[in-house]
């Protein structure tokens, strides 16, 4: 009872602490984005072919771009406090609508990537560590090195060439089959089918990281006193490995996975572009080139919130894995 109370208090405290952090991120992003030359009106008018200076001035007024910077920031912060992320001039839609719409594909891609990367990373690291300096270890290490060193977009394109063009197993791009427009379970299967190649591409890089981390962590734990103790108690190697060592060795991997959720959104820009996956990464990329700053800020804000939330979840998992870690 006391422990669950403590946990709730801890979560609330952490959430409270996160507010100024998110706030600082918003302000910092706002000023960083002002450094780019040209604004949304330039892009809109450029795309339209031409426009009169009067029209452009009118647009700037409408978008509030003619206001002093500090006023624009004030308006933006006021909106954010009321959970209004503003309006995307380019898409002619509220930012929150756009961002939430694109958040689901990203979440899908991120979740499957984390599961694949962490799951296989732990497994491969375990296999490598348990067969130290055997051919298994060497093969896994080489695999990890290669996948880590290969550029993401190249991996993506090669997977498309092999599995879409040559073998015809998977579609090249997109999230759904647009000639058919499936519904119900057919649609779920269709989306899962489209998800395979982007997930593998994005996972490979992180997979390498987790494999190496897991292997090192396993080796470190294997030399600890408690392992010797366990062995002295007469426990089987199997039990020592899976119950004692694994539980401790997994901690750094979980920490790393938490830290990398933010980086994952960054990495997904490339994967989303290559596979035309309609996620946040691609939206952010396009928003930058369209100088759609409201939209970009909205995406950054959501990412920041996501990172804070994931870190909180990681800390909770952490304390479950290792009860000695206090929640204070």
């Amino acid at each position, binding site marked *: 009872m006391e422990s669950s109370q403590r946990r709730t208090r801890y979560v609330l405290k952490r959430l409270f602490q996160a507010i100024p952090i998110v706030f600082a991120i918003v302000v910092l992003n706002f000023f960083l984005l002002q450094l*780019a*030359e*040209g*604004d949304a009106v*330039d*892009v*809109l*008018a*450029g*795309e*339209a*072919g*031409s*426009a*009169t*200076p009067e*029209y*452009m001035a009118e*647009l700037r007024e409408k978008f509030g771009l003619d206001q002093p910077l500090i006023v624009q920031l004030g308006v933006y912060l006021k909106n954010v406090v009321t959970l209004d992320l503003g309006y995307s001039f*380019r*898409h*002619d*839609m509220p930012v929150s609508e*756009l961002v939430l*719409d*694109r958040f689901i*594909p990203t979440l899908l891609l991120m979740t499957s990537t984390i599961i694949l990367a962490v799951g296989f990373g732990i497994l491969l690291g375990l296999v490598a560590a348990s067969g130290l300096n055997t051919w298994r270890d060497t093969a896994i290490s080489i695999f990890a090195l290669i996948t880590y060193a290969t550029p993401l*977009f190249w991996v993506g*394109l090669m997977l*498309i*060439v092999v599995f*879409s*063009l040559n073998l*015809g197993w998977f*579609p*090249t*791009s*997109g*999230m*759904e089959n*647009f*000639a058919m*427009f499936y519904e119900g379970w057919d649609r779920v299967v269709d989306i899962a089918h489209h998800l395979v190649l982007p997930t593998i591409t994005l996972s490979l890089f992180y997979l390498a990281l987790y494999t190496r981390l897991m292997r090192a962590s396993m080796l470190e734990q294997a030399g600890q006193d408690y392992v010797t103790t366990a062995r002295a108690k007469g426990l089987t190697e199997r039990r020592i490995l899976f119950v004692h060592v694994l539980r401790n060795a997994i901690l750094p991997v979980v920490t790393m996975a938490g830290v990398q959720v933010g980086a994952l959104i960054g990495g997904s820009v490339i994967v989303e*572009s*290559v*596979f*035309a996956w*309609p*996620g946040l990464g*691609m*939206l952010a*990329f*396009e928003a930058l*080139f*369209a*100088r759609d700053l409201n939209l970009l800020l909205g995406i950054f804000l959501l990412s920041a919130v996501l990172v804070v939330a994931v870190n909180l979840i990681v800390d909770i998992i952490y304390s479950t894995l290792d009860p000695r870690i206090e929640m204070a």
Partner: protein
Amino acid sequence: MNFKTLLMGASFVVGLTLAPLVAMAQNSGGNLVYLVQPEPPSLASFLSTSGPIGLVGPKIYDGLFDYDTDLQIVPSLAESYEVSEDGKTVTFKLREGVVWHDGAPFTSSDVAFTVMDVLKQVHPRGPNSFREVTSIDTPDDYTAVFNLENPAPYMLRALSAYESPMVPKHLLEGQDLRSSDLATNPVGTGPFTFTEWKKGQYIRLDKNENYWKPGLPLINRIVGRFIPDASTRTAAMENGEVMYGAYGAIPNIDAVRLREMDGFSVTTDGYAMINPMALIEFNTTKPPFDNPAMRRAVSLVMDRQFLIDNIWFGYGKPATSALSSNFDKVGLYKSGLPNYPASGDLDAAIKELDDAGIMPDADGIRASITLDLIPYGEDWRRAGEYMKQAMKPLGIEVELRYEDVPTWLNRIYAEYDFEMNVNYFYQLPDPVLGVHRHYGTDQIRQGTHFVNSSQYSNPALDALLAAGAQEPDATKRAGIYGEIQTILATDMPVANLFEMEFLTVYNDKLADHATSAMGAYGPFENAIVAE
């Protein structure tokens, strides 16, 4: 028998006779998935001439005319037209029985509203195309009389669905045109109705069952897909996931490979109405390009054929004048002008500079400049690399600058902070529409994109441009444009490089998609996909 049952009976009989026809048409059409790249900002083709909007808009909206591959007028919403003796009145007879996608009838009041209250007000090129239109009379529902200040022969070439889409008055009147719901939920009279736009993924259009051309369109559904990565676009084409890609959606380097494969074709048809021209804009207000000799020298040293052969894989034609040779068809093009060699002429360029007294310094340098490049893809970057090398023996040291679109637009058209800029423009079906904007003094409009950024001003030329726009007599008009081209070949405020040939790559299952001069910007009502 009351009226209602009579009506039902009649429609039943009509339905019976038409049913097999309709069923056949539905089975024959198939679904078309094509590339729309990049994702359009909106579908308001009455507000923007943006390329991706052009790929979708004309399938939803009709124009008064369409144009065949020889640029001749084909009736569309207007069945016929008549120009008065003095050229100042144009009377359009409109098609009867056309309805908007929401069921309201299309009438002459829609035409008057579209031209006077929409295109003349908010369209990027509309104010220019309809400059001379002072009012539009609508004596009856199917007659629209355009009253002109001066004759405007070029106007008849600006009435396609892409350039001047007819929009519904009853949905737009009294609204803020620039934030109307129609921008994301278009309602036209065209062959396809708008169904859905899933941001980041696709735009879906479905067959307009009430289209005024009987039995058309043939395709049941059109889906425009957005795929940001060029290699993936090619893979999707190869895999049959998309069937059509125009305007460089498939890069030339991949197009020449697909051309050799079974099941795919490549064509340069369908761009006659656009007439794209690659060119260099000089900043004529500051050294070194305030000196016409410098500009001529750069034009002389450019190996136009090299650019075409090595960077654009043989697609394109060297420019020979300020006007595209496509204007030969309408008698406006003048050949045999100086300063436009197909292959670079270094000796002539050096002589040009020497004669003008622009001498190299001790290091052999005559000028150090920065060359800006249009940020629309790798081809332009490679072209820049070539130009840098080509100008070196002239003693012109070049630094290349490649920025993102907003920065570049701001630099060239708002700040005029450049010396030399590589770009391309659509010359469109008439010079008044597409060429005048480079050279007129009234086209020096700071902050406006894609106009006279060279800031070239020549009163003699201004007078000729004004005369050329209004001259109804074809022979006299040709004479005026001949003079214009001679002046421009000497003054060279802009060096035209080559007439671009865009490539359309398509799956052979798709047929009859390029039946109009508009190509990818056309309605696709005749297009058909084999099962």
